[in-house]
């Protein structure tokens, strides 16, 4: 619960832990968060230990300037990751950079070949509006937490946190997304393959913010599967994304929660690309043989580098990734064959 009162030069906001408002004392208790209408005023107020400055840029340009001035600032949009960490006191950033007032982060553009997806577009929107263009990501969005969280969280947060368990990553890897990162120094597109650099680490520079994700519109069937130990609202034990790209006659994969970072199963992709190519599968639409599917699955399992933890054993994760790889391959390929058959019929 948040109450806001005007104070000279800024707004003070109290995050109370119960529905009952606490009286605000002077000096404020350590949880007090200072809201700045204009972040240049921050220098005038001496911060108390444990306090967070809450930066509220009204535009993208202001956000970039704030991030440049305070590279340790933690961006917050839906808050579905950041607030959990703050509530549990796992993290106490000096600055929170609230992106909720930057409206264009909530927008998406469907271009000729590519969707430019604003970093804060909620998963619910992706499910409802972008299923034809981004079927893999839409399926992944379905598996994110609960409806309430899906209404708040977006892909930018998944990328910013870069947890190996983030639900969007396998779909982004399989689709070959590009992350639009920007700072006051300029803008760049980071290929998703280069984005994840370590456990909860990514390729962003300290002064960069994620503005959008560029994802090619699906040119073939895509699938996404996630194993959790209950049937809804669960963190991935492991996840798998697969996209057929008939235009380039390639297959791309993405694996979640089975390695320190989200990864592609490159050897599996290469094997399958070669098999499909040699057998003329893209043209003749033949059924993929069980032995090919099996080998693909084994190579996907081999691409994992999982750990044992409370959510599952490493051995199970390897096994499950293999099963999901085989199944999603069969589903996408059957779908591709159906499409190919229909196309042939029309022709």
């Amino acid at each position, binding site marked *: 619960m948040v109450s806001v009162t005007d104070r000279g030069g800024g707004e003070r906001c109290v995050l109370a*832990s*119960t*529905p*009952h408002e*606490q009286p605000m*004392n002077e*000096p404020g*208790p*350590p*949880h007090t968060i200072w809201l700045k209408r204009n972040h240049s005023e921050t220098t005038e107020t001496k911060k108390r230990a*444990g306090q967070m400055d809450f930066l509220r840029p009204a535009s993208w340009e202001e956000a970039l300037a704030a991030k440049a001035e305070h590279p340790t600032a933690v961006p917050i949009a839906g808050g579905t990751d950041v607030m959990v960490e703050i*509530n*549990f*006191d796992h993290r106490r950033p000096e600055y929170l950079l609230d992106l909720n007032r930057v409206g264009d982060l909530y927008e998406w553009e469907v271009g000729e070949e590519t969707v430019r997806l604003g970093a804060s577009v909620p998963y619910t929107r992706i499910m409802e509006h972008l299923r034809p263009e981004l079927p893999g990501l839409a*399926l992944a969005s*379905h*598996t994110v937490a609960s409806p309430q969280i899906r209404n708040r969280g977006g892909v930018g947060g998944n990328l910013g946190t870069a947890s190996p368990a983030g639900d969007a990553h396998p779909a982004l890897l399989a689709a070959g997304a590009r992350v639009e990162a920007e700072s006051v120094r300029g803008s760049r597109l980071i290929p998703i393959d280069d984005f994840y650099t370590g456990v909860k680490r990514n390729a962003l520079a300290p002064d960069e913010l994620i503005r959008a994700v560029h994802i090619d519109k699906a040119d073939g069937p895509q*699938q*996404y*599967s*996630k*194993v*959790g*130990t*209950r*049937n*809804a*609202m*669960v*963190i991935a*034990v492991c996840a798998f994304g697969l996209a057929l790209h008939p235009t380039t006659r390639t297959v791309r994969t993405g694996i979640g929660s089975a390695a320190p970072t989200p990864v592609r199963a490159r050897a599996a992709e290469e094997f399958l690309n070669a098999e499909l190519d040699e057998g003329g599968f893209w043209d003749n639409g033949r059924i993929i043989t069980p032995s090919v599917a099996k080998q693909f699955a084994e190579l996907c399992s081999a691409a994992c580098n999982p750990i044992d933890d*409370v*959510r*599952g*054993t490493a*051995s*199970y994760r*390897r*096994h*499950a990734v293999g*099963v*999901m790889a085989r*199944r999603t391959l069969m*589903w996408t390929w059957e779908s591709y064959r159906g499409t190919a058959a229909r196309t042939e019929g029309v022709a």
Partner: protein
Amino acid sequence: MGTTGLPTNITQGSRTKGGIGESTLRPDGTLKVTGEFAYSSDMWHEDMLWGQILRSTVAHAEIVSIDTGEALATPGVYAVMTYDDLPTDVRNYGLEIQDTPVLAHGKVRHHGEPVAIVAADHPETARRAAAKIKVEYRELPVITDEASATAPDAILVHQNRTDHHIGHVPHPNIVHRQPIVRGDVAKARERADVIVEGEYVFGMQDQAFLGPESGLAVPAEDGGVDLYIATQWLHSDLRQIAPVLGLPEDKVRMTLAGVGGAFGGREDLSMQIHACLLALRTGKPVKIVYNRFESFFGHVHRHPAKLHYEHGATKDGRLTHLKARIVLDGGAYASASPAVVGNASSLGAGPYVIEDVDIEAIALYTNNPPCGAMRGFGAVQACFAYEAQMDKLAAKLGMDPVEFRRLNAMSQGTALPTGQVVDSPAPVAELLRRVKAMPMPPEQQWRAAGEAADVRELPGGLSNTTHGEGVVRGVGYAVGIKNVGFSEGFDDYSTARVRMEVVGGEPVATVHTAMAEVGQGGITVHAQIARTELGVTRVTINPADTQVGSAGSTSASRQTYVTGGAVRNACELVRERVLELGRRKFGTYHPAWATAELLLEGGKVVTDAGEVLADLVDVLGDEAVEIEEQWRHRPTEPFDPRTGQGFGHVQYSFAAHRAVVEVDTELGMVKVVELACAQDVGKALNPLSVLGQIQGGTTQGLGIAVMEEIIVDPKTAKVRNPSFTDYLIPTILDTPTIPVDVLELADDHAPYGLRGIGEAPTLSSTPAVLAAIRAATGLELNRTPVRPEHLTGTA
């Protein structure tokens, strides 16, 4: 199920509207659903402080030093207290054995044990100040299982025990041991044509109530304290709190605050004493609210168990004998362990006729999290094991598992292994017959939609892991037996105060008890009883507090029986007084006042033939009739410490389940499609509440079957998943349809013939699901919960 969604076969209605047998609505129901109900965590007091507890970061260690200086110097902090600041020599508490330090004294025995407490003007200040307290630990080896607890050189978790169990336990790291020995197992074994053995493991389940531990202590001008608290038994708390504070019990006035679920987890104290200590120290109201993380450390859990079972049977399917050993892990403090041992052993044979039995149950002291009461209380763990055994025996004999159970089912008149002859209906065979006869859910419902598979109906749900590949259906059955009420000679009474007077021209009954309403619906039932007995429409239920005598615990499926019985008893006494008043005022006007059986109905005094003699408004006039009276069920007796013989339990409760599951056999994911239940409830006082209890208990049993488990590191005894992120409880998508078939066979010893119902469905739900998964996979599965690893050979 009927079209109303109510269980079938229930008698409806009574002669006064809103009386027993009707599904009157709960007064708190709408508020809870709309989020307006005030829980204990919602309380607020002008000028109040916030309390925070500092808990141990290690499981077993000597405390070398505690430095509170920096915490005390923090602006906004009003008090920091450790063991040395406790006001009296009473510094321990406990339900039965006072072995739990209010604050750690020289040693911590489990991860998350309270070490110090802080009061500050804001919760965040309190939390940060607590973090500044420096505690130096010298770590000790951890005791985590039977082998480490009973090793010759094992460190004693508790030195110098003086409790009344120490005389009969084989090792000081064993809290209590109860053998149940009847007949001659060695001899009976010779008659057995088949013998099956099994080693079973039951994981540590959490009550996972949604309202975390919380309360508000307000210091009073008379030097006492008013405590508003979510608990299961106000007077049990009071008995433990007052001596530690050095106050007489009448200066610790307790009022029940809104309880957000309990399931046994609020039988032990949590923050009660801490809040009172800080309030008395600072002279200010102190509120404490645990967050979810702390809640996992703030209450006891269900005992994890290892159970070894051996059963024999003849070729024609008759059980010959049972030899069982049940090892329960009680963790660092005793809590309810002795009584859990009593239940696990005395109910360890299940609802079956077995003449020759040798059962031993023990609870260990270890450095694992303390375990105590949880719905099903010892009977749950045993049921998991004996029901797995029944399926193994049936398979070995080539018999149908339900028919095998029915053949051996106990009934009214059966002598249990304790020697107690069950003297009220025990329709075990009939419950099994009914649950088996219920229509089966259609196969492969995910195909019904047409072309694409409806993944919501498949294992994995919207996680989209299968479109039908690898999915196999399995069906499993189980039945269980649970005692009702406190056992083994415990003086298990309740108290009710009932008042009748005219308010606003209408007769009104007021019911005042100390019964903790924890969601079970007792307040609804009390009003129904008052209407039925006193013939009034309007009933006021006063808040539960310690201004009235003890109601006993809201646990052991006992409150409708015992406090319901006390309310009925008080109502009957009030009715007698009212009729006396009527006779004095109007007796001369009609001979029936002297001769007929008189009742109160519809606001009037009527004869049993239905003739109206007077209006209650006129009978009462300006007078109020009020009676407070204790009520007891018939006494029980302790089990013999060597043989376990004795009339130990006052009543038994039975439920049977049929589970239908679909298992993705490749990924090890489980979808429970349906969990049908048949239960004997004696008499359904409120059919809708009965349904809610059965469905809730069934779902809690499902949770421990497929997902719920507190994972404790065996090397460090530290809890690894203290959050709802990793301690999973069923969502609505994991909860199947639960058709319920209810029997009402009266127990003549109980008020209205009712039978306690809240726990029995939690027993049989788990083994039914396990049996169904075994049927689908062909795996042995001797542990619960079952995780995907166990179904895929990747554990």
